[in-house]
C-alpha cells in the first residue's frame, strides 16, 4: 500500500499543516492551468502513478511549462506514460500541474523504521533533489529517535548541525519537520519521503519548506490508515481481483499475503508457513500460480472460504493442486484439509469436474486424520493423489509436484479427464 505524488500527498500533508505547492489534478480546466501559470510563472507536469513509483525525474517523466501550450503538450506526453524501474512497471493515468516553487535550497527528508536501529529513523540532508545514495555520508544525517516521544525539534536541530546545513534553513526545518512524525505515526504509515523540500523565501527573506514531491508507504495491518479516508482504488494497482478477494479474509488468525505469481501457471499451491511459502515459490518458479501463506491455524470456515476463492479463480487451469507445508506446529491438519477438501467438493458440484492431480506434503497435529479426510474427498471425486508426510524433504516434494505437472502437460491431463468422463475439449 504505497502512494506517490502530490495529487493525494498534498492533502495528506495538509493534515499536519505542512506546506505544499498549489496542485491541480488531471481534470483541471485550461483556464485553471492558465491561471496557475499566470500566478507562478512555471508549472511542473507530473504523471499520476498508483503505488510506489520513484525516480520519475530521472526517467524524464517530469515536465515543465511556462505557457498553456507547453503545459498541454506535456500533459499529452505524460498522461499515459510508462515507467520501468527494475522489474517494476507502472502506467500513468493522469497528470498533475504543480506550481513551481522558487528556491535556492533543496532538502531531502524521510522517516522510516530502520532495522539497523530497530527504531523510527529520520534521514535528512540539505542536498536534496538528488539520489540520497549518491551523496557523501557526511552530508546525510541518519538519526534514530524514540518512538514514544517522537521526532522532536532538537533531533532535527542536532542533525542539521551535524551535517553543517546552512543556518537559514535550520529554523524553518526545526519548526516544520517534527509535524511529519505525527502524520507517519498516527495514520499508519511505515515510510514517508519528501524529496525535494524546496525552501521558499517569503517576506523578510524567511524560508518556508515546501514539499515538492511525496511518497509514502502504509501498513496494511494498521487500522489508523482508515482515518485518512483514502479511496481503496488508490491501492487497486497493487492487487489483482483475486488478491483483493482473498485478502479480504486476512485476519491475524491465519493467512498472510497471498499474491499471484503467474496468472498462467499450472500448479495451485496453498502453502502453509512463511518459510514453506518462500521455498515453494522459489522452487516452483513459473509453474506456480500463487504465492501464499495460509498457516497460523486458520479455522475451518476461513480455510474453506479461502480455498473456494482460489479454486474459483484458478482451478480450471490447474494441473496440480499442491497442498504443502512443513511439520506444522499448531495448524490443525484435519481442520485445514477438511476446509480445502469440502471447498473442492463444492467447486466440483457447482462447476463440474476438472482434471487434477493432488499432491500433499505436510506434518502436524491430526495429520493422518486430515489425510484420511482429504483422501476420502478425492476418492469420491475420482482424483488421483499422493500424500507425503513430514519425513520427505519439503523441497523434494516440491520437485515431485513439478514432475507431476510435467506429466500432466504431456498427456496426463487428458488421461485423468478420460477417467472423469470428461470430453477432451472440456478438459
Amino acid at each position, binding site marked *: 500500500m504505497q502512494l506517490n505524488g502530490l495529487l493525494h500527498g498534498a492533502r495528506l500533508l495538509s493534515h499536519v499543516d505542512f506546506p505544499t505547492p498549489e496542485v491541480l489534478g488531471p481534470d483541471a480546466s485550461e483556464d485553471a492551468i492558465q491561471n496557475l501559470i499566470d500566478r507562478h510563472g512555471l508549472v511542473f507536469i507530473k504523471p499520476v502513478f498508483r503505488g510506489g513509483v520513484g525516480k520519475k525525474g530521472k526517467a524524464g517523466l517530469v515536465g515543465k511549462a511556462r505557457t498553456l501550450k507547453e503545459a498541454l503538450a506535456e500533459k499529452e506526453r505524460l498522461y499515459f506514460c510508462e515507467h520501468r524501474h527494475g522489474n517494476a512497471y507502472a502506467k500513468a493515468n493522469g497528470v498533475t500541474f504543480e506550481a513551481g516553487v522558487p528556491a535556492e535550497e533543496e532538502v531531502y527528508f524521510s522517516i522510516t*523504521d530502520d532495522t539497523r536501529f530497530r527504531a523510527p529513523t529520520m534521514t535528512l540532508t540539505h542536498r536534496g533533489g538528488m539520489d540520497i545514495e549518491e551523496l557523501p555520508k557526511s552530508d546525510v544525517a541518519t538519526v534514530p529517535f524514540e518512538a514514544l516521544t517522537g521526532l522532536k525539534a532538537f533531533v532535527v536541530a542536532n542533525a542539521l548541525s551535524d551535517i553543517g546545513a546552512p543556518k537559514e534553513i535550520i529554523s524553518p526545518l526545526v519548526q516544520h519537520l517534527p509535524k511529519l512524525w505525527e502524520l507517519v505515526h498516527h495514520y499508519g504509515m511505515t515510510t514517508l*519521503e519528501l524529496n525535494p523540500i524546496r525552501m521558499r523565501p517569503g517576506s523578510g527573506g524567511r524560508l518556508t519548506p515546501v514539499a515538492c514531491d511525496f511518497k509514502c508507504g502504509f501498513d496494511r*495491518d494498521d487500522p489508523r490508515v482508515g482515518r485518512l479516508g483514502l479511496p481503496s482504488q488508490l491501492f487497486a494497482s497493487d492487487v489483482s481481483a483475486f488478491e483483493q478477494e482473498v485478502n479480504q479474509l486476512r485476519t491475524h488468525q491465519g493467512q498472510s*499475503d497471498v499474491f499471484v505469481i503467474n496468472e498462467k501457471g499450472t500448479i495451485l499451491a496453498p502453502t502453509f508457513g512463511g*518459510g514453506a511459502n518462500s521455498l515453494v515459490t522459489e522452487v516452483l518458479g513459473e509453474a506456480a500460480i500463487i504465492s501464499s501463506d495460509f498457516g497460523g491455524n486458520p479455522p475451518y470456515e476461513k480455510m474453506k472460504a479461502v480455498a473456494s476463492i482460489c479454486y474459483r479463480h484458478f482451478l480450471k487451469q490447474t494441473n496440480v493442486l499442491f497442498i504443502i507445508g512443513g511439520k506444522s*506446529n499448531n495448524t490443525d491438519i484435519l481442520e485445514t484439509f477438511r476446509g480445502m477438501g469440502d471447498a473442492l467438493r463444492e467447486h466440483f458440484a457447482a462447476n463440474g469436474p476438472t482434471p487434477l492431480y493432488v499432491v500433499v506434503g505436510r506434518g502436524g497435529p491430526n495429520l*493422518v486424520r486430515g489425510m484420511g479426510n482429504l483422501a476420502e474427498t478425492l476418492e469420491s471425486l475420482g482424483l488421483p493423489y499422493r500424500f507425503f*508426510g513430514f519425513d*520427505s524433504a519439503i523441497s523434494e516434494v516440491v520437485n515431485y509436484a513439478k514432475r507431476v505437472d510435467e506429466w500432466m502437460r504431456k498427456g496426463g491431463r487428458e488421461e485423468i479427464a478420460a477417467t472423469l468422463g470428461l470430453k477432451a475439449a472440456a478438459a
Partner: protein
Amino acid sequence: MFHQGIQGIPYYLGVRSLGEIATREDRVCVLNVMGGESRQVTPTSHAFSGGNVVFGTSPGRAGQVLRTPAGDIPVFNNVREGLAAGHAFNTGVVYLPPSGVRDGVAELIRVNPGLRKIVIITEKIAVHDAREIRAMAQGNGIDIIGGNCLGVADSWNRVRIGGALGGDHPEESLLKGSVAIFSNSGGFTTTIAQYLGTAGWGTTTLVSSGKDLYIHYACPDFARAFAADDRSKAAVLYAEPGGYYEQGIEWTKPVVACVVGRWKSKLTRAVGHAGAMAGSGDKAEDKERWFMQAFGVEGIFTPENPVVSAKGAVVTNIADIPAALTAVMRLNGMAPDFAPRGDLALKPWVANDQGLRLPGEVGLPVVTAPEPYGGQIAALGRQVGAVVARQNMKDKSGASVMDPKTQVTSVHGHEVLDLALLPLEACFALPLVHEIASENDRVMLDVAVAAEVNLVGDPILVAADAARDAGNAPNAVMATAAAIVGPKRVERVLACTRALIDAFAHSGLRRARDEAFDTSGVVMDAATRALFLATPEEAGDPRPEAMLAAIEARGGRSAFLKYLKGLDGRLSRDAILAATATTIAWGPLMRKRISRLTAETLPWYLRLYGVMVGATIPGAHHQSGSLWGIGREERFGRWTMADLCFLAMTGKKPTPEEALPLQILIGLLISNGPGSISAQGAKGAVSADGPQTPGRVQINKAMVGFLTHTGYSHGGNGFEGMAFLLEQFKGTGLTDPSDPGHGLDLKAMATEFARGYRREKKASKEVGAELRALPGVHHPIFKGKPVNHDPRERFVAEYMAKAGRYNVFHAFYRELVQALYEQGASPYVFCVNVDAVIAALLLALLWPDYQAGRLSERDLETAAFTVFLYGRMIGSAAEIDDHLNRGRNMDTRTPASQCGFVV
C-alpha cells in the same frame, strides 16, 4: 533511551547466553490464555516444560482454569490479580489479538517488576505498535522475542515458551544436541530441527524470531548469545529477504545459513516487507552475499557443489542444511551428535492412482510411515469403500445434474447423450458403481439380470397380470412386481455379498476378473460357506448351472465366482448374483469411489431390474425354461439387456438395426436430474424409510416410489408425439421409415400442416381459446433465435447421420419447424425438441408391427411409456442409492412455513 543490559551494546539486551532464553526456572504468565490458539498450544508447552505456566489472563474469565496434562492453569482477569494471588513470573507470553498486543506488553511491564522476557506470538501487529513496544522494552530492560513468531525452545532444558515449536509432540523434534537454530520462519524452526535429526544432529536452543519489520530478538542478539553458549557448537540460521539484521555479524563458531526468497526480487511490484519501498540492498541475494563474506565461501552449497569453509556454508534449500552442516563440522573435526534418524527421501504415505498408469517418477510406491502414523494409516486402509458425509438432500443429488443451459443431464459425470451411445448393460451398473461397466462386467450383468426376468411360478407374475388386467398403466404393473421384491427376497443374496466383501477386502485383490488371484489366504467359516450353497428346496432350479455355463461361454471372469466354485457344493442363484455384483462393484469399491453400502446393496437393484423388465411381459409368455418362446440357454448365453427390453416391448429379439434406436431411447431417458417428479418420488421413499438407518431402507419400495411418480403426464406423454406423427402419416402408405427413398414429399406434408395450423391459430386467437401445443416442437429454453436447436436433438441427428441411419419421422419434424416459420405460424424457426426424437425413433421401431396390425395404438402408447420406465429405472436407481448414502431421515419434507394454503 534504553536500560543498560549487557555492557558495550548501544541498546538493551539482557540474554547473555542461549542457555538463558528458555530455562526450567522461567515462570510464565500467558495473556489471553483462553484464546483459540493458546488453548491448543499452551497445555502441550506447559506439560513439556514441567509445568512452567503459573497463570494466564483472560478478562472476565477469572476463576476458570485451562486444563493441561500437567495440571490446571489458573485464569485471572488481569496480571495484577494473578500477582496478588501469589503467582510470581519473569516471562510473559502474548496471545492477544493484534490490536491488544501493545497494551498487553505495557501491562506486563508496568504491573510486574520481576518481568525479564516477553514472547509475542501474535502476527500482523501494526508497525506503529511494534515501534512503541520496542521503545517500552528498551526503556525498561525487557527482552522481547517475536512478534509473529512461535517462541523459543530448549532441547537440553526440555522447555518451550510461547508458541508451538515441535508441534503437538515436541519430544519428536527437540532432540538434544549441539546445534542452535535461529529462524525467521516458525514452521521451519521445527522442520530444520527435524531435518538435522536425519543427519544425526540435535539441538540446543531454538529461536523462532518472526519476520516482522521489528524483530525484537534479532540475528545480532542471537549471535552474541550463541557465542556465549558452550553447549552450542554450531548454528543454523534461516533468513528471508528484508532488513539488515544479518549484515556485518562476526560469527565465532560455525554457521550454516539458509537464505530463501530470491523469487521476491523477480516480482513485478513491491510486496510489503521491510525496505521494499526503497528497494535497497536487503534482497535475498544481498543476504547470501553477507553470509558468504562472513564464512569466506565463494558460492552456495549444494549436494553437487558442496562449497563450505570451517566457518560455515550458505544454502538456499532447507533440505541441504544437514549435509552442509555435517560438511562444515567435519572441517572443524566434529562428528554428529547421534546416529542419523530417518532420511529425507520422498516417501508417499498415502496414494490412489485411480487406475491410471503413471510413469515411474510420478507413480512412486507407497511406503509405510513411521509410528504412530503408520498404524493410523493402516487403520484408514482397513476402511473399505468411500465414506460420504450425510446432509439434507431435498432437491439435491450427488448422482445427477441437469445443465440448465443445455438441458443435458449427467449421471455420475456421464452425460445422458453419451450414455445413449453405450450398450444398455454398460449403463445399468452406472448408477450404482459410478463408472461405465467394463466388457467383462457387462457380460456378468447380462447373465445375472437375464436370470431374473422369467417369473414363471412366482407370485409376482400373478400380481403383475392382475394389475395389468385391472387396466393399470405399465408403471403400476411394474410397481406391483417391485413391491414384492422386498427385503426377505434379497436377504440371502445381500448376506452373500457382504460375506464376499469381508473375505476379500484385505486379501490384496485389485482386479475382480483376475481369476489367477491366489485365494488360499481368503478365509471363510463353515456357516458363511453354507450361505452360498443351494438349499434342498432349490434343487429343482436349473438356473445356477445355466448361469455358470453362460458366463463361461461368454468369457466372463470373476475371482469371486472362481472362489465360490471351489466351495465344494452346488451354488445357489443368490451366490452367483452376489459374485456378479461384487465383481462389478469391486474396482470402484477398492478405489473408494463407492461406499460399501452401495456395493452391498447392488444385487437388490440387479434383481429389481430383472423383475421389473419381466413384469412388463404378460404372464402367458413366461414358461418354464422359455420366455416368449426364447429358450433359457439362448437368453442367458447370448442376449443383452437391450434384447430383453425389446423382447418385453415387442415380443421378439431386435435386429442390430432395431437395437440401436432402443438403446439411444433408453439412454436419453435415464435422468432429468433430481428435480424431476420420478426422482422426487424415489428420493421421498428413501427419505421416509430413514437413510440414516440404511439397513431399514426398502430399495424396492423406493423403486415403487419412482414408479408411482410417473404417469400419463410424466412418462406416458411420450405417446403424444407418436400420435401426432401417426396422424400426419396416416394413409401415406409408408412401409419402411428408415428408407430415405420413401417417396413422400415431406416438405409438402409439412407445409400443408403448417398452413392449417396457422388458420387454427388465427381462429383460436379470435375466440380467445388456447391453441393446441404441437408435441415435439419448441422448447422454453431453446427459443428466441432466428433458428433454434435443442442440442440433444442435434446430437442424436448427427450421430444417426454419421451412422448412415435415416428416420422419416425425424426428417418430417425438421421440415415441419421450417414450414411453420415459412407459413407464418411461428415467429422464428422453432427447435425440434428431444421428445420429437424419442417419438420418431420409437415409432420407426414399431411401425412395421403397427402397419401389420400386430400392434394397436394402445400398444404403442404402452410401449412409449414402458421405454420411458426402462430408462428412468436406471436414473432412479442412481437417485435411490445416492439418497441412501448421503441423505438424512425425512429430509425431503417441506417445512410448514414454506407451504401454502389455497382457498
